[in-house]
């Protein structure tokens, strides 16, 4: 159905599209991150069946999929919060097996989670520096003034306007909280940023500001971004490429220039109809006779 190659690039697909429509693994020398045959189960529930994904330097990849398709699980595996049951990951061509969130972060992967991972009771600047706190030496007391100053500079630099950074984030609006969560990842040395629904709970104006921020990061070309989105228009506005996850596997992987809202909608609707028919058949099936 599709080969998953970048338009105009010399990607070589060593395992092209399978009969089931699942996108196979790719190999491209410019990939900063590659995932091959990633699977994850939670007890009886299969969250990821066979995910193959790749990310190039400076690229913004949009990850689409229905609720429960496995997008957030994939992000949590990438950032070291969970471990896959099988499959391999490579980062900058080397095997990538993060032991923890800290480990993944040390290797340059930062994440904004769907649930934001912000700490309501902590101030804006403490949230920005959580696990990267500045401390005095030799007595390791928190260098709050330094963190406040650096937080203010970081927020100004990326164009996020928060009037007070010493108040708890519980007092901020949904959009401001999201902006802080995004700023936390940008305010790091990460070269890969994972954004799990960064535009959720945001108004159009606030969402546009986050997309502007993503566009600025893209223009700088320093970081590569994987971003989970639900709004197709935003995908086409912000992303270079789109991967669609269905039922725990990537079923579409195309540059946004080579696909359309209609094509994505068509795939999703087809899957929805198939799932409904399956559910109807299941409901209509006669109960098994007693043994």
């Amino acid at each position, binding site marked *: 159905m599709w080969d998953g190659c970048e338009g105009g690039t010399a990607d070589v697909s060593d395992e092209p599209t399978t009969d089931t429509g699942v996108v196979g693994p790719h190999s491209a020398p410019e990939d900063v991150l590659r995932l091959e045959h990633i699977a994850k189960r939670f007890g009886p529930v299969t969250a990821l069946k066979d995910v193959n994904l790749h990310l190039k330097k400076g690229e913004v990849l949009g990850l689409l999929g229905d609720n429960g398709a496995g997008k957030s699980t994939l992000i949590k595996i990438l950032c070291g919060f969970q471990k896959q049951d099988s499959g391999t990951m490579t980062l900058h061509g080397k095997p990538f097996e993060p032991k923890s969130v800290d480990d993944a972060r040390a290797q340059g992967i930062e994440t904004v989670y769907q649930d934001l991972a912000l700490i309501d009771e902590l101030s804006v600047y403490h949230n920005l520096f959580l696990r990267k706190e500045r401390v005095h030496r030799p007595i390791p*007391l928190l260098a709050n003034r330094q963190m406040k100053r650096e937080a203010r500079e970081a927020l100004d630099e990326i164009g996020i306007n928060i*009037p007070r950074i*010493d108040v708890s984030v519980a007092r901020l609006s949904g959009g401001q909280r999201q902006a802080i969560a995004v700023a936390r990842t940008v305010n790091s040395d990460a070269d890969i940023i994972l954004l799990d629904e960064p535009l959720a709970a945001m108004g159009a104006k*606030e969402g546009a500001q986050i997309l502007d921020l993503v566009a600025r990061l893209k223009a700088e070309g320093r970081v590569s971004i994987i971003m989970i989105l639900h709004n197709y228009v935003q995908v086409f506005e912000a992303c270079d490429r789109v991967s669609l996850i269905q039922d725990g596997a990537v079923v579409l992987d195309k540059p946004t220039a080579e696909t359309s809202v209609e094509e994505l909608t068509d795939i999703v609707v087809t899957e929805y109809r198939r799932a409904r028919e399956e559910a109807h058949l299941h409901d209509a099936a006669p109960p098994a006779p007693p043994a």
Partner: protein
Amino acid sequence: MASAAQSPAESGSAGAGGTGREHHSVKLPAWRELLNRVTALREGSIIVVTIVVAVYFSINTSSFLTGANFKTLLPYFAPLALLGAGEVFVMILGEIDLSIGAMYLFAPIVFYKLDQAGLGLVASMIIALLICMVVGLINGAFVAILGVNSFVTTLGMLFSFEGLSLILSHGTPVATPGAQVTQTEVKVHHIVNGHSIVLGEKVNHIGTFAKIFGGGVYSELIWAVAIVLLLQVVLTFTRWGLYTVAIGSNKLGAAEAGVKVKLVIIRNFVLCALLAGVVGVFEAVRSQTIQPDPSGPNELLLIAIAGAVIGGTLLSGGSGTVVGALIGALFLGILKDGLILQGVNANYLLFYTGLAIIVAMTANVYVGRVRRGHGGRE
């Protein structure tokens, strides 16, 4: 985006912070400014309530505001402040430690047994406290690793170790090692009607160990204030404190940010058990007797938790203050002491204490609302 909608923070009074972008409220009268500053503290409400109660007893009871009465108050409030300090670290996590009553009882018994075995006072005390820390570690491991509810875990540990204390001590009170009072006679010169006479007077002495570890008049108070201040610094100005608040506020979020949640939980339970053991040894030294009776510690642990809650620590976690627990303990001490001095019938004492706790908590909630309305300290 932030400028589009007025942040709730913007409506608050100008607080600490030096970003230069804060909104400055209109100039308030000095007394309102002071009141706002006090209520802006997490401990603000209990400070106000404690002052009101102290002023009330000072006016109504002549013997309240005296040095002698202060000395009476110390033995009650210092142990509660120390127990509360440890409990605050657990309660901010959203957990609770009921086993502090057992550690309070268990530590001096182990201390006594080890001293009897010839280990010496200091070594016996250190080992007894290390054993308390191991119990704290077990509590923490059950909660953090096995996911057992902390109320259930520590209730089990409370009963188990109180039982173990009775088994070890055979339920018999003993004299605390190193706390014995010795008497010496000194010659004192007196001038009577212009004549110098020498009279023998008996003077009580306690050993250096006892003086330092709870036996001295101000020993427990000094320890309590020093430890409370130290732990408040830890809570406010170190990563440990930051992570404790983070876990209590959003455990999953803290874990996702890379905070080692299990380690912090275990560490806080260890701290709580250690402080309970310390208080147990101090109190045994002060009273010169080790009483293997669980009823006292059981009451003490509940009052310590009440003190911490009154002091502004949330039972639901995410927020708390060690200094607040100290002031909460002071409030409970003043209340009990004041009621006794007022001649309240002993049978009514617990009843009035219970009512006062409810009134103080209600005032606390109200002042807390005012605080949040004014933009509190974050």
